């Protein structure tokens, strides 16, 4: 609508109000009760949205906090962490990068299911820490340092808790990553001996981790659309679709 229209309308409104005033009537301006009603509706809808968001968030978190404790055995085979009883009928292989945010989501979402299945001897899981995101920290190399620290944690017999702690404290891509001191403190807080810090600082598994990463990247069975990414999960050697939230339960029941 044009400015002329608006001026004309305003003139008419003023004239109407002048007539009301002349008749001794005070027109109510703007419909206050209507305005209050509208603002109440806005407040109710916005608060309802926030409550929905908070409720969903808290529900997911309380489920994660009250998870089952890990009672399964953990051992190392080179740079691969073997979790669970060797006799378990289903073999799961997890390829993860400690800097990869989707790996953190995988861990957070399925940690309890995986721990329960490992405790019950339904599955065994081989954790392959790969380091495709080494260049995504400044300075580069957090993925490798974290993967090495996790292998140190196997030797310190704190692997399940340390693995979870690395994801709980996962730094953002583009950041500096956790320092060796922070990686060490996380371990000693979980009861690791003094040698853990030396193992973290030495980063002695770096070369083997890099070699294992290269090998994984070049394995066609692990690729999606011709390229390797994390997280990648296989069940008995076949890559699973992680968009299917039932991938683990389905594998156990088979």
């Amino acid at each position, binding site marked *: *609508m044009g400015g002329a229209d608006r001026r004309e309308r305003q003139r008419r409104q003023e004239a109407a109000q002048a007539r*009301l005033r002349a008749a001794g*009537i*005070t*027109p*109510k*301006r*703007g*419909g*206050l*009760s*209507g*305005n209050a*009603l*509208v*603002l109440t*509706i*806005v407040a109710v*809808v*916005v608060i*309802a*949205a*926030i409550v*929905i*968001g*908070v409720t*969903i*968030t808290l529900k*997911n*978190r309380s489920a994660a906090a009250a998870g089952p404790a890990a009672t399964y055995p953990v051992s190392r085979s080179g740079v691969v962490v073997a979790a669970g009883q060797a006799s378990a009928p289903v073999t799961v292989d997890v390829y993860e990068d400690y800097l990869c*945010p*989707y790996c953190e*989501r995988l861990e957070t*979402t399925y940690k309890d299911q995986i721990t329960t299945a490992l405790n019950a001897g339904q599955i065994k899981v081989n954790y392959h820490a790969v380091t495709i995101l080494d260049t*995504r920290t400044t300075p580069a190399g957090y993925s490798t340092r974290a993967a090495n620290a996790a292998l140190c944690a196997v030797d310190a017999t704190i692997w399940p808790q340390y693995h979870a702690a690395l994801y*709980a*404290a*996962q730094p*953002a*891509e*583009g*950041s500096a990553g956790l320092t060796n001191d922070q990686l060490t403190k996380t371990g000693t807080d979980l009861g690791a001996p003094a040698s853990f810090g030396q193992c973290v600082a030495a980063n002695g598994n770096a070369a083997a981790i890099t070699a294992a990463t290269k090998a994984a990247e070049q394995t066609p069975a692990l690729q999606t659309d011709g390229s390797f990414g994390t997280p990648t999960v296989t069940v008995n050697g076949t890559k699973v679709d992680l968009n299917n939230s039932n991938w683990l339960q389905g594998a156990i029941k088979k």
Partner: protein
Amino acid sequence: MVGTLARLGLAAVWLASGLLKALDPAQTYVAVKAYDVLPTDGVSIVAGILPWFELALGVLLLLGVGTRAVAVLSAVLLLVFIAGVSQAWARGLNIDCGCFGGGGAVEPGQTQYVQEIVRDTGFLVLAAWLIVRPRTFGALENLIGRAAEPGPRHSKVG
């Protein structure tokens, strides 16, 4: 007329972006985290609330209830988004804004900070228009206002 289009346009923006975020909570979490501003708990809370907050703004604008107030909330949220993208750009992070789903880190050189900020600024113009001129056609608040408007009778000055 412009106001009506601005209202429905901004409603479409919030409904689309809110729905895409609500449908993929893990992706939304990753997108929020990539800004590297909030601690872990803050990321989960923001990622949990944001989709529903956007949907609420979208529904209210679509219906035309409290257009001016919702436009103010929209403008504030858009300014937060622009600030978030700007700080990521200034700090040299390489992320996708995750404005309409997606998000997270991208390869260096794949960032689209200028486009993202220009787009958000465009939405901000829509919100600003509605703050200045909230009266639009087909808005539910027109009916509420009229129903609540007293007839010509003596009444206290509000």
